[in-house]
């Protein structure tokens, strides 16, 4: 009902708004919020995310001027929104848009403060961004050739460790060997890669 103050209490609102039982995409924002507050509802949550993700991203782009940061903002705000809805912590579901905008403003303001602090540090101590930038990647073409030079099993261990990020025990199970053997193979493989890449030898 327009102008009515909703409380997230299930039974009363069920009687007041039978429309919330339709497909999620047909519901307005307050009805979606209500469904999510009632309990796990993947369809409603997905629809809510779909509706707000674009708006949050645009806000992020406008204020942060960075696609990656804007997408981070989308994740952060949507996760916050869903958590609060499930906890019944959004007191005015009919003003969901304002709630999301407020959360975006707070997040972006915090990030910008952090960025300003970092800039001040750089200016005050004469640091350059390169002073704490990540190390550049190795010559990927050369690494490509070096990786090919490994045996099949060693290559698999390296791929499972650094791409799939599988624990040693899991790698051992999958390759029908022992964790100790996986470690030995991995150490030897990295030593071989380092040697092939022309990096300084390390004591084992």
């Amino acid at each position, binding site marked *: 009902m327009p102008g009515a103050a909703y409380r997230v209490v299930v039974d009363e609102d069920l009687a007041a708004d039978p429309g919330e039982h339709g497909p999620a995409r047909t519901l307005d924002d307050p009805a979606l919020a209500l469904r999510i507050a009632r309990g796990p509802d993947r369809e409603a949550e997905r629809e809510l995310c779909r509706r707000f993700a674009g708006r949050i991203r645009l806000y992020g782009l406008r204020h942060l001027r960075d696609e990656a940061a804007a997408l981070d903002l989308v994740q952060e705000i949507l996760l916050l929104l869903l958590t609060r809805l499930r906890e019944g912590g959004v007191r005015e579901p009919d003003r969901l848009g304002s709630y999301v905008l407020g959360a975006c403003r707070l997040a972006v303001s915090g990030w910008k403060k952090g960025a300003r602090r970092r800039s001040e540090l750089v200016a005050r101590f004469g640091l350059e961004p390169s002073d704490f930038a990540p*190390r550049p990647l190795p010559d*990927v073409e050369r690494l490509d050739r070096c990786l090919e030079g490994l*045996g099949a099993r060693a290559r698999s261990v390296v791929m499972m460790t650094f791409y799939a990020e599988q*624990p040693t025990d899991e790698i051992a199970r999958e390759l029908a060997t022992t964790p100790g053997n996986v*470690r030995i193979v991995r*150490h030897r493989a*990295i030593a071989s890669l380092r040697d092939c890449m022309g990096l300084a030898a*390390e004591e084992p």
Partner: protein
Amino acid sequence: MSCGTAGRLLDYWARDLPPEEERSLEEHLFSCEPCGERLAELAALAEGVRRLVLAGRFRSVVPPSIVERLAAGGLPVRTFRVRAGEAVPCGTAPGDGLLVARLETDLRGVSRVDCLVCDETWSERERVADVPFDAAAGVVTLAERVDRARHFPAHALRLRLVEAGPGGERALGRFELDHDPRGPPAPQAV
């Protein structure tokens, strides 16, 4: 704590240290620049490997889980199933990210598999020793990078799987993939 050995730094980066040892090493890393440098070098190497795999830039017999993960992450993987004794047409299409041959044969009780690349008489030309395999599913998964496959001429790739052991070799199966540079065969109507 003294400086970490290369092995210890690798175990740390691979999340393979016991929690207390990890905490202790991390404290050391924040007070030892040389160790920090060594770790940064290792981390860069690891990231390079990760990016190559993500891009499908590898040619290898791999555990099936690697291919599954890449496919789930959105890399377009084109798979050809080849049962022992079969010859299967294959090729690559625009948009493919990785080519995979699933070599299927009975691998129960097998302890080690070697993959032999053969000539037209099925004689061994090249051996890939001790390859990963899924004994339960009876599958050896061979991945081929698309950036190279696109330039292959028409040819037949003949592979033999053997169980290699102290007592000799036991044949596990022969597999043939007939590459057509014009592209993969059209899907069969169901």
